[in-house]
């Protein structure tokens, strides 16, 4: 016979809130809130309560007029004990849109007598668990006390994981039923809608798993024609699947209390008995109260642990951000502070991805794999901070690096540069012991109805590709760090803007300064020269010495004027914009040579000028550069006869290289670094005139063009200056 495995989510289709009947150990009545006439009754009502509890009867007459007071008040529930036909009944009632639902359960006098003992027990439990800081310990204390109160064979405390698998974290039993401590039960054992009902109605008792439900009469509510909603009814009949599950487990009576922490179903306290067992509503209420005490304490302990971890991680984050503020950039800072970076999320590896750049610390996947993760993260919209402890499930192909990155927190820092900060946790291979094979939750034979599993034998499974889950505090810490980084990035951008402003301002100031220098500094030199000349013209009978003095005054002032002009040219060069065109270098050299002719009178110079390739640049600036170099070659070869000046050029694919060589006095290579500095001179002023700015100016021109310049020399063996200019876009590659 072929069998098929069906998800228990099929259970979701079962009408668990509107089963149409109740468990038969009590009776249920629905009364109209105005007339107190009975609208619906359970089929066993007349048998249990008496023939007068018939449809249409007035409930005030049957159980007393105080019912009316209850209906008029805000109090949502009604609980008391009454005597009917010499039997004691506990009445629990609640109001619904379909009428007031009254549930009657028989209680014994002995049970009522034992209620006296409940108070001290509950107080002791409260005193006990307040001292406990461990969830397991307080679950254990609750299991022990609830078993004493309820008298069931075994009490289990489950806690749910995020996937709703339950683990038994505490157990108290008398040995009649097997121990399930530390076993895991699959989420399918308690379907989603049952979990929701547990959240709404925190306690449920099934005194006998072999009961036959008592149907409601009439089946549909006369108020709205719908089946009666029994969500909040204690006697609500449960799913036959569940009863079968109980019988398969060997438990004929069960009671469950929900542990709600911050309105979420945190766990269950589940009581079982091998034999059927009834429990008075008052005792059930005490058990429920005990469960609530546990829930409060669990909430407090977890919040405390969360807060403690949060504070610790906040300190780490604050420390790290402070250190990053001193780093050159985020990437460098993070790598330097690897330990803190990892601690932010208590991770074993971390990486920052900026575009294609990856910087990692600790144990991480390879750079290529990190880029793959980043691409996957960017492939679709995700929360700014994304966390998983099961990356292989989320990301296709992630099994490959599961050993180092089963856990991932990804924080997106900037969309613009697609910057991501990642934390990794390695795979933790765990062995989980299930109470039965979780992969075979239900078995349905063709044509057969849904059946729960029958085996609760231990079933071990290795959990792979999973990391230790990130705690809420760790994810929040990563979020905080992300926000800090974003502020940091913004701050850096602001600082940059402020710096640019400042630079622009000081540039303007410098410009104003050099402007006034150019006007005011030149004037006095002009005046000195002017008056010296006027004096020379006026006094005709000067002796040679006086004439020499006068000549020196003029020369000195002229030199100073030249210095001012050179300095200005140099400072202007920083600001001048480059107007690039194709420049005929051969023509430029010829022009410069013509301009230098006065300096070359009486000199014997042999020129060797190649057919120079054209350059790409600003013609007037290049003329200045070339002029300085050629002027130097002429000047420093003054002592050579003949002087040789060789100018050559070659076009390489990316740049054009020119050189100017002479056979003059050369220079000591020791000082080559100083050659291109402002006011750096390697010769005495009386040997070679000059302001010491020419080569600095030349280098600046070449730099502004994106090129380079080098000098080589040897004392008394000449010098060679070589410079290169990048080729223009249109020129590139054409040799």
């Amino acid at each position, binding site marked *: 016979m072929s069998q098929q495995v069906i998800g228990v989510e099929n259970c979701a289709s079962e009408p668990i809130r509107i089963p149409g009947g109740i468990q038969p150990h009590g009776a249920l009545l629905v009364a109209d809130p105005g007339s107190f006439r009975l609208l619906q009754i359970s089929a066993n009502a007349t048998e249990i309560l008496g023939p007068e509890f018939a449809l249409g009867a007035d409930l005030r007459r049957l159980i007393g007029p105080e019912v009316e007071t209850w209906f008029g008040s805000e109090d949502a529930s009604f609980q008391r004990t009454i005597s009917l036909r010499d039997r004691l009944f506990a009445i629990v009632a609640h109001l619904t849109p379909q009428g007031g639902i009254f549930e009657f359960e028989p209680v014994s006098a002995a049970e009522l007598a034992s209620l006296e003992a409940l108070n001290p027990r509950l107080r002791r439990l409260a005193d006990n668990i307040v001292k406990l800081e461990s969830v397991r310990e307080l679950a254990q204390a609750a299991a022990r006390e609830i078993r004493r109160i309820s008298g069931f064979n075994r009490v289990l405390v489950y806690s749910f994981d995020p996937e709703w698998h339950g683990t038994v974290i505490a157990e108290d039993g008398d040995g009649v039923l097997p121990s399930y401590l530390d076993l895991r039960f699959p989420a399918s054992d308690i379907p989603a809608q049952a979990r929701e009902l547990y959240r709404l109605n925190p306690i449920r008792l099934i005194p006998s798993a072999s009961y036959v439900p008592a149907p409601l009469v009439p089946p549909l509510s006369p108020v709205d024609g719908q089946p009666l909603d029994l969500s909040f009814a204690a006697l609500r009949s449960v799913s036959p699947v569940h009863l079968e599950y109980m019988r398969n487990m060997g438990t004929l009576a069960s009671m469950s209390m929900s542990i709600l922490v911050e309105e979420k179903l945190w766990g269950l306290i589940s009581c079982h008995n091998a034999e059927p067992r009834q429990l008075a509503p008052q005792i059930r209420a005490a058990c429920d109260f005990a469960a609530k005490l546990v829930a409060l304490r669990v909430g407090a302990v977890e919040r405390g642990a969360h807060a403690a971890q949060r504070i610790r991680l906040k300190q780490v984050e604050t420390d790290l951000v402070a250190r990053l503020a001193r780093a050159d950039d985020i990437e460098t800072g993070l790598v330097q502070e690897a330990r803190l970076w990892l601690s932010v999320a208590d991770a074993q590896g971390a990486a920052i991805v900026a575009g294609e750049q990856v910087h990692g610390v600790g144990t991480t996947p390879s750079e290529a794999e990190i880029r793959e993760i980043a691409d996957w993260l960017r492939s679709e919209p995700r929360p700014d901070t994304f966390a998983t402890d099961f990356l292989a499930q989320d990301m296709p192909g992630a099994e490959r690096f599961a050993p180092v990155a089963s856990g991932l927190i990804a924080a997106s820092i900037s969309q613009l540069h697609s910057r991501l900060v990642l934390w990794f946790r390695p795979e933790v291979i765990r062995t989980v012991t299930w109470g039965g094979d979780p992969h075979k939750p239900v078995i349905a034979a063709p044509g057969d109805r849904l059946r729960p599993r029958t085996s609760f034998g231990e079933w071990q499974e290795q959990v792979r590709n999973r990391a230790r889950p990130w705690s809420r505090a760790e994810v929040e810490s990563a979020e905080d760090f992300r926000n800090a980084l974003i502020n940091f990035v913004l701050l850096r951008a602001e600082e940059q803007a402020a710096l640019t402003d400042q630079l622009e301002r000081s540039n303007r100031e410098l410009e104003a300064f050099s*402007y006034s220098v*150019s*006007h*005011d500094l*030149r*004037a006095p*030199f*002009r*005046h000195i*020269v*002017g*008056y*010296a*000349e*006027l004096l020379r013209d006026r006094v005709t009978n000067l002796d040679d010495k006086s004439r020499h003095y006068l000549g020196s005054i*003029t020369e000195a*002032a*002229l030199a100073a*004027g*030249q210095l001012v*002009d050179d300095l*200005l040219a140099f400072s*202007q060069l920083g600001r001048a914009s480059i107007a690039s065109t194709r420049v005929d270098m051969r023509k430029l050299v010829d022009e410069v040579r013509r301009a230098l002719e006065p300096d070359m009178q009486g000199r014997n110079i042999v020129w060797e000028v190649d057919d120079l390739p054209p350059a790409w640049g600003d013609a007037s600036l290049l003329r200045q550069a070339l002029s300085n170099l050629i002027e130097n070659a002429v000047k420093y070869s003054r002592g050579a006869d003949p002087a040789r000046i060789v100018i050559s050029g070659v076009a390489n694919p990316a740049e054009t290289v020119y050189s100017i060589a002479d056979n003059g006095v050369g220079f000591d290579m020791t000082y080559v670094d100083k050659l291109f500095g402002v006011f750096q001179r390697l010769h005495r002023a009386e040997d070679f005139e000059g302001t010491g700015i020419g080569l600095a100016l030349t280098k600046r021109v070449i730099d502004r063009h994106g090129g380079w310049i080098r000098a080589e020399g040897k004392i008394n063996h000449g010098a060679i200056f070589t410079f290169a200019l990048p080729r223009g876009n249109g020129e590139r590659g054409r040799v």
Partner: protein
Amino acid sequence: MENAGVSDLRPILLVEDNPRDLELTLAALAKCQLANEIVIARDGAEALDYLYARNAFEGRDPGAPSVVLLDLKLPKMDGLEVLSIIKNDPQQKHIPVVMLTSSREERDVLTSYEIGVNAFVVKPVDFNAFFEAIQDLGMFWAVLNEPPPRGNNA
């Protein structure tokens, strides 16, 4: 070309605040042996007073100067402002203006030409070069350059 008689020579207006530059410029002009009278204004406002025959120059001999030698940096109102007023006034704009400046600042040159300067001279440190420049300018503007025809409305 009509030869202008000595008595027809209109004055040169020299606008210069720096006393040394003034003295040197006058010496240079004297060297040129120009017959033109040289009128001196020490700032931009005075220059305009002369051109518009007002304040200190009220009731001066009528007629525009043959050339204005205008320093760029002047107290009260600088050379560029004076130039701009002259060149924007239809009655004055034909007067040749030569800007004299210490500076090689490119923007001054550009601005001056935009406003309509007739020549721009950077005062060289070398006095001989300065002398030659002044001589050339004086000869050209004060003697050789014909003012535009005055038309019937003169």
